């Protein structure tokens, strides 16, 4: 079975005035389908930059990023938007829901951008919300929901378009530890249901839920450790 993600000699350089800052300094990384992987590292290690590139929000300075046999590093803005829409489901630390619209409409958004019609959209979005246990909160706006519920809405939004990867950036960072555990349990469920999950965190407690942990330091991979031999 091939790799879902192949990253070869990935470099990202930021120009800081006259100086060049190597946020990523030659990363090689393969991720298989249905892996549950945590990317760890202290701040400044390059994990956010790597996450942005894997999430197609940013493009590398050099190197290749191949997702599902497509070379993403050569794509333009609109093609990247299409990839984000169909292949990637984001879960953010701050939830990043749109405040003015209800849970159902928030979950519908990715489907709107993939051009689905109203009835299909509502049906799929409802299903996704029921699957994360929010079947009774469809018409609630984000500010009428608790932190854990908001993150569940975000997870439903990430899942609704059946993406190849779920990309979670410190998903428990804004939650208390009990709610955080609930969200992590949800991710474990998703993993056992066949989803590929990439978790970006700096907390060991959170990272231990993953099967594989990749640690970054100064833009390079410091260690790559798997609990289970794949």
């Amino acid at each position: 079975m091939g790799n879902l993600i192949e990253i070869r000699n990935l470099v990202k350089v930021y120009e800081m005035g006259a100086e060049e800052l190597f946020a990523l300094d030659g990363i090689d990384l393969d991720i298989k389908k249905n892996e549950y992987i945590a990317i760890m590292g202290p701040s400044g290690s390059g994990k956010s930059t790597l996450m942005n590139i894997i999430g197609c929000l940013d493009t590398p300075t050099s190197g290749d990023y191949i997702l599902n046999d497509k070379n993403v590093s050569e794509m333009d803005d609109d093609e990247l938007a299409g990839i984000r829409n169909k292949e990637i489901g984001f879960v953010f630390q701050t939830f990043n829901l749109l405040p003015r619209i209800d849970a159902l409409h928030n979950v519908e958004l990715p489907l709107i951008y993939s051009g689905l019609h109203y009835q299909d959209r509502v049906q799929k979005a409802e299903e996704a919300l029921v699957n994360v246990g929010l079947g009774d909160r469809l018409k609630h706006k984000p500010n009428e929901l608790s932190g854990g519920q908001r993150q569940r809405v975000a997870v439903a939004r990430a899942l609704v378009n059946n993406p190849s990867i779920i990309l979670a950036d410190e998903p428990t960072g804004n939650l208390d530890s009990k709610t955080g555990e609930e969200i992590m349990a949800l991710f474990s469920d998703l993993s056992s249901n066949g989803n590929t999950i990439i978790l970006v965190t700096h907390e060991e407690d959170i990272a231990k839920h993953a099967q594989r942990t990749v640690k970054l330091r100064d833009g390079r991979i410091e260690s790559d450790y798997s609990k289970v031999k794949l």
Partner: protein
Amino acid sequence: MNILLEIKESIIIAVTAILGNKMRSILATLGIVIGITAVTLMQTAIEGINQAFEKSIASIGADVLYVQKFEWFGKEDWAFYRNRKDITMNQFEFLKKFSQTSASISPSVGSMRTLKYGDLSLENVFTLASTDEYQKTLGVNVDDGRFFNARESEGGYPVCLIGYDVKKAFFENVNPIGKTIKIGSYSFRVIGVLEKQGSMLGLFSLDNRVILPIQRFFTLFGTKRSLSINVKAADINKLDETKEEVISIMRKARKVPLGAKDDFGINQQEAFKSTYESLTSLIKIIGSLITSLSLIVGSVGIANIMFVSVKERTKEIGIRKAIGARRRTILLQFLIESIVICLLGGIIGIMIAFPISLIINAFVLPTSMPLWIVGLSLFISILFGLMSGYFPAYNAAKLDPVDSLRYE
């Protein structure tokens, strides 16, 4: 992604955003409301005056040439025209005899007279004298009674037709036919009432007149006057041909030497139209400049609000981009928001302008608001929405997703 679906979603987003910020949206539309009100009122006034003008000059007749000493809107001194030789009945007879491209020709002469009926009196009534052919030449319609016939015309019978104003002043509840009125100090029998014509551009009434046989006029008021010879062309499409013919016959009749300029004028409705158009086109240009100024101020306001709106929603744009919104989608979202705001302003503007135009129509000037003006105003609103929304929307579309997600 389907463009119609995209537009529909953008409209929903726009309406939600506008409703979410009611006060700001109202303030933002204010400039456009004022601008569109001004544009619409300007157009209705111009349209109303145009229509009134068309109606007014209809009485001049599009296919009638007026041979006169004076030229309408002539450039020379009044004295220059006055010193020309008079146009006489002999010249009229000559023209009538030789013209082949005219349907009918009639001479006319007029002056202001005081009319009397019993104890009633009416000053400064336009007293027009002509032959029986005048009716055919100018297409005069008689409401009541009849026009004078050839026998009455040639014999100079003391008969007359009265205009609507005269009828109203003298014969409010009486049938005027057969009654005797005095023009100056001479008696005339009323044989007809002219159809009501209204006023010339609201300046003077076309109904304040009497028409009598020209021979009678000469007998009573003297022959030493210059005539107007009115020529109705046989074919309106060959008006220029008739004009050429009339000029050449009149030159012979008046013995104008070869190479000399015409010593008479050929007047036609066209002169009114071109003078009117050169006048109103100036008004239109100045009016459009002034009104578009208010629209530009309005659209700067909208652009300002849109820039603020984009800035405020940087995070939202980041989120939308993260879950798959393309540049075009974001561009469209903000463009449509700006268009919706302007269109709203335009609709309100039209709703304000409509009653005002009715008030102006009743008290000041004729106005008219046909559907095309409403359409034009809405089109201008959309145009200004596009213009004022483009740069803010373009800024929004090209935002970097990583930066905008980080924006707080």
